[in-house]
Structure formats: structure tokens, C-alpha cells
């Protein structure tokens, strides 16, 4: 079998024009599919930035909340009720809201403000500069150095600004594992300062973040919180909920899906058509092989090998191209959200296999039907 596959390989790659066209088709399709799904994965990842960065095991929220960006404030008694549930080690409030900063040069800049529990500072970010205790000082804020950081004029320790007509001072520069999605810089402060500085409704707790005594206590905690009319989600469940929201309740998922399908169809059209032409041009040769004594199964192996080899080569090139483009884009645009995940790679791999399968199916049908007698007849 090795020898006949080598013939198949040589027939394929020595036909440089066709082989190049096949590779271009599949590479292009894989590139588009990976780019689209990677952008979507990046958006989903960043949409969960607050959940990932705070790192709490259990989040309590209003059931109508779909994303951390649109929290629905809860009354204080919920916090007391959560704290009284058996199995809760501790529970603290978290504020998440939007503010308007006025920089020293007079420019206004929207910011995301995260208010950490005053007593515990649970969910605080890793500081690159400054001391965490300074957050208790008057008007103190910690700025996150991420892709949005320059929008605040790259503030240093001691930089002053206004936030919702209150004075603010940078006392720390932090890093977080995931940057925000919406292009706004993030400021951390204490919960009490946040609700004091940012206009809010009667209720002020955006989320209650819970540390359970043990993982086995989580179902009971969730059940008790549900009886209060609220929802408790583990970190992973909350990330899934956010992901589901973006996939199915916004146009984003559908648009990405459509683009991915279009990429698939483009790739299938180009490579399918080219492979079909390749088979047609070699049909007589396959017929000659059949006449000489090649079995039908051997010809099928040849075609499957050619289609698979092309598909996998194109797949590798497409992935490589996407990786290079994403890397270059991130160098130029730090806020570029795309990220290649194993799921994306797996998805593109399956799509490429489908392209190879359909292309080879067409070829196999042709080759199986060719009669060696036609070779004699000329």
C-alpha cells in the first residue's frame, strides 16, 4: 500500500498548479474559520473578565443577570441571608459599575469601577506598583495596566483625576489575567467608596461573592439562595451563562456562525472544484491503473490519501497563517480579542475533514465508475 500511496502523493504534489490551488482553497477556508471562531472565543473570554479576575468560587446575583456588565443591584439583606446559610464560609459584596473619569488634560473617559469588600478586599488584583493598604487612603483607586490603560493617559502612582465629580488618586497599578471586553479602563477601589462615588439606585450590591466551606456545600447553598429569589452560580456556570448569552441572545453568535459557514462553503467550493478537476484530468490515468491491475479499493485509498494529505497540509497552513495574523494584530492592537483555543482548532479540523470527505467522495464516485475498457476505446 505504501508504494501506491507514494504514487498518489507524487501525482498530487507534482501537479504544482492544482496542488497550489487546492492548498490555497483549504488554507483560506481554515484561516477564515479559525479567525472567526478565534475572535468569538476572544470576545467570550473577555466578556467573562470580571468573573475570571475576581476569582470567586460562587457568585450570587439576580436571575435576570446575563453578563457582569449588566448587574442588577440587590438589597443588603440578601448579603445577610447568604452569610447565614450553612456551608458558607464567608460572603462579601462586590460592586461593578460604570463611571466617568475626567483626566488632567480635560478629556473624559468612561471607566469600569470594581468596588471590593472593604474588610477583605476579596478579588483584589495583583499589584505591579504600590501597596494594597493604600486603597483605604482617601480617594484611592488602583488602575489596571491592560490594553485600555493608555486611555487614562498611562497614569502613574499619585496621578490625580476626577471621577463622577469626585477626586481620585492612583495608588496602585495592577495586572489582571483577562482584559476587559468593552474597551474601558478598569479601576479598583473599596466597595463603600464605589457606591459613594458612582450614582446608584436604592440597592447597591452588584454581586455577592461566596466562599463555601467545602465544594459539597455548593448545591445546598445554591438551593437556599434560589429560595430567596436569587441565583447562585459557580464560577464556571457563570462563565457558561455569559457565553450562552453572547452566543444565542445577541446577534454575535449567529453572525460568527454565518461567517464560519460562508468560510466553509468557500473552502469547500474552491477545494472541491479543484479536486474534482484534478480527478477528471487524471481519470484516464486511474482507468489505466485499473486496467493494469489496481483494485478499486486501492484507487479509493489513493484518492482518500490525496484529499486527506491536501486537507491536513492546508489545515496546518491555515492555522499557522491565523496564528501569525493574530500575533501581529495583537502587537499592533493590544485590545485585539482573538484567541485560538483547542475547541476552535478541533472545529476547524472537523470542517476540513468534511471538506476532504466531500471532495474525495466526488472523486471516488468518478474513479469507481471509470471502466478500463474506456481506456482501450480511447
Amino acid at each position: 500500500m505504501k508504494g501506491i500511496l507514494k504514487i498518489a502523493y507524487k501525482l498530487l504534489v507534482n501537479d504544482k498548479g492544482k496542488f497550489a490551488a487546492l492548498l490555497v482553497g483549504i488554507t483560506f477556508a481554515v484561516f477564515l474559520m479559525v479567525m472567526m471562531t478565534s475572535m468569538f472565543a476572544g470576545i467570550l473570554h473577555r466578556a467573562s473578565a470580571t468573573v475570571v479576575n475576581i476569582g470567586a468560587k460562587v457568585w450570587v446575583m439576580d436571575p435576570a443577570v446575563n453578563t457582569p456588565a449588566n448587574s442588577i443591584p440587590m438589597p443588603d439583606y440578601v448579603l445577610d441571608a447568604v452569610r447565614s446559610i450553612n456551608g458558607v464560609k464567608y460572603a462579601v459584596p462586590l460592586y461593578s459599575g460604570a463611571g466617568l473619569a475626567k483626566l488632567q488634560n480635560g478629556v473624559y473617559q468612561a471607566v469600569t469601577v470594581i468596588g471590593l469588600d472593604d474588610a477583605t478586599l476579596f478579588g483584589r488584583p495583583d499589584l505591579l506598583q504600590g501597596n494594597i493598604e493604600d486603597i483605604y487612603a482617601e480617594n484611592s483607586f488602583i488602575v489596571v495596566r491592560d490594553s485600555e490603560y493608555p486611555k487614562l493617559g498611562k497614569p502613574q502612582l499619585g496621578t490625580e483625576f476626577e471621577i463622577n465629580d469626585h477626586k481620585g488618586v492612583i495608588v496602585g497599578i495592577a495586572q489582571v489575567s483577562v482584559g476587559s471586553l468593552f474597551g474601558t479602563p478598569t479601576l479598583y477601589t473599596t466597595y463603600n467608596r464605589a457606591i459613594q462615588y458612582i450614582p446608584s439606585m436604592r440597592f447597591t450590591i452588584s454581586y455577592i461573592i461566596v466562599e463555601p466551606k467545602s465544594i459539597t456545600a455548593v448545591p445546598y447553598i445554591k438551593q437556599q439562595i434560589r429560595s430567596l429569589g436569587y441565583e447562585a452560580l459557580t464560577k464556571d456556570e457563570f462563565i457558561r451563562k455569559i457565553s450562552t448569552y453572547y452566543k444565542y441572545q445577541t446577534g454575535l453568535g449567529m453572525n460568527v456562525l454565518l461567517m464560519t459557514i460562508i468560510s466553509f462553503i468557500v473552502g469547500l467550493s474552491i477545494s472541491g472544484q479543484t479536486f474534482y478537476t484534478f480527478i477528471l484530468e487524471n481519470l484516464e490515468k486511474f482507468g489505466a491503473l485499473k486496467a493494469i491491475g489496481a483494485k478499486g479499493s486501492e484507487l479509493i485509498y489513493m484518492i482518500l490519501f490525496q484529499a486527506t494529505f491536501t486537507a491536513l497540509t492546508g489545515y496546518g497552513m491555515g492555522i499557522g497563517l491565523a496564528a501569525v495574523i493574530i500575533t501581529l494584530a495583537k502587537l499592533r492592537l493590544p485590545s485585539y480579542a482573538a484567541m485560538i483555543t483547542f475547541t476552535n482548532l478541533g472545529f476547524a479540523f472537523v470542517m476540513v475533514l468534511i471538506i476532504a470527505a466531500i471532495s474525495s467522495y466526488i472523486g471516488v464516485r468518478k474513479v469507481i465508475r471509470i471502466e478500463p475498457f474506456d481506456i482501450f476505446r480511447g
Partner: protein
Amino acid sequence: MANLAVKANKLVKWFGEGEAKTYAVRDVSFEACFGEMLYIEGPSGSGKTTLLSIISGILRPNSGTVIVDDEDIWSLTGDQIADFRLNKVGFVFQDYHLFPKLTTVENAAIPLILKKVDWNESLDIAMKYLEIVGIKDRAQLPPVKLSGGEQQRVAIARAIASSPDILIFDEPTASLDGETGRRIVEFVKKEILNEKRCIIIVTHDSRIFEYADRIMKMADGRITGITKGGVCEE
């Protein structure tokens, strides 16, 4: 009859059905022997290519038998017939059907590769046959770089590479000028034919008739006579 290479008996082949039914081969029986060069001659549409296809295991007849090695080849399964073609028959097609994307030596090695002989060994063996047909120095070129006569020789090398008992030539001189055609057939008669091999040639090129041991004439799907030689010698 140890000398008998092929025994065709009452072969019938038609194409189409109903009013479109056309007989290509009608009740044809003949024998071909080892050591002979048998020509099947006749005008276009006389059924000689169809007959050639039937006796070489390519086209199934509607009735009749083709006995090779005491076995009716048309009683074999599809894969067994493919093996029969691979091991017993060598083909030289009218248009050669060489692979332009393979080198000359790779083309000649194809039957060996199909027989699952190691790739390098196949090329070594094929090279010996290219030497026999006199184009060893062209071994690494693609067939498109060769002249018509040279391509014919590659096709012959490919046909004999697996040492088949029966060699089938379909209009071997159709694409060649008269002199080259004659030289090729003379070469085949001198160098390729031996007492363990039978060569059957379909042609209507009278310029090469002088090399035939026997010439069987066909018309309208029937054998109408033996115009040279007699019966198959035992």
C-alpha cells in the same frame, strides 16, 4: 496443452438493449500460443478492441469463456480478475497512458508497485527493463519530454516489468510514423517475445504485418479468417 496461452470459446459481447442492441463480438473462438505474435486485424468497428478487452480480463463477455492456465478468467471475482491482469497480462495502450507527473522509471515501475514490491526495488527492476528497451538514459525524465517512439518504449517497459505471460498491444503503431512503428514492432519481436510469452496485437497497420506469426482477420464482430499462419502450434 502447455503451449496454449489463451483459449477463447464462443465469445459474445453486445452493447445496448432493445433496438439499440449492437453486437461487437459474435461467437468468436480462437487460441493464442506462447512464443507467437498474434495479430488481430480488421477495420474500425470490427470488434477487435472489444475482443482484446475480453481476453485480457477488462470487459466481461455476455457469454463464452476465456481459458488461461486452465481456468475461465470470467469465473473469477472482481479482485481476482484485477490480480489476473496484474500478474498475467501486460498492456501497451494505444495512447500509452503514461503518467506525466511521474518520471519515466517510475512509470515503468507501476505494475511492480501495484504488486507491492518495495519502491526502490521496483525502480531498480524497472531500470533494467528501460535498459532492455534502450532508454535507460531517459529514466529520470518525465514522459512528456520523450518522443513518441520513446514513450512507446516506456509503455513496453511498463508492460513487461512484471514479467507477464501475455502481452497486449492496442494499435501500437497508430501514433508513430511508419519507420518508428516498424522498428518498435521489430524490437518487440526480437527482444520481448520468447517461448514463455504470447503477444497479441490489435492493428490495422499493414506495414507491420511482416512481423506477425499469425494474423487473424475480424469483420462485423466475427473472425473471418486466418490470413497468415495456421492454427496455434502445440
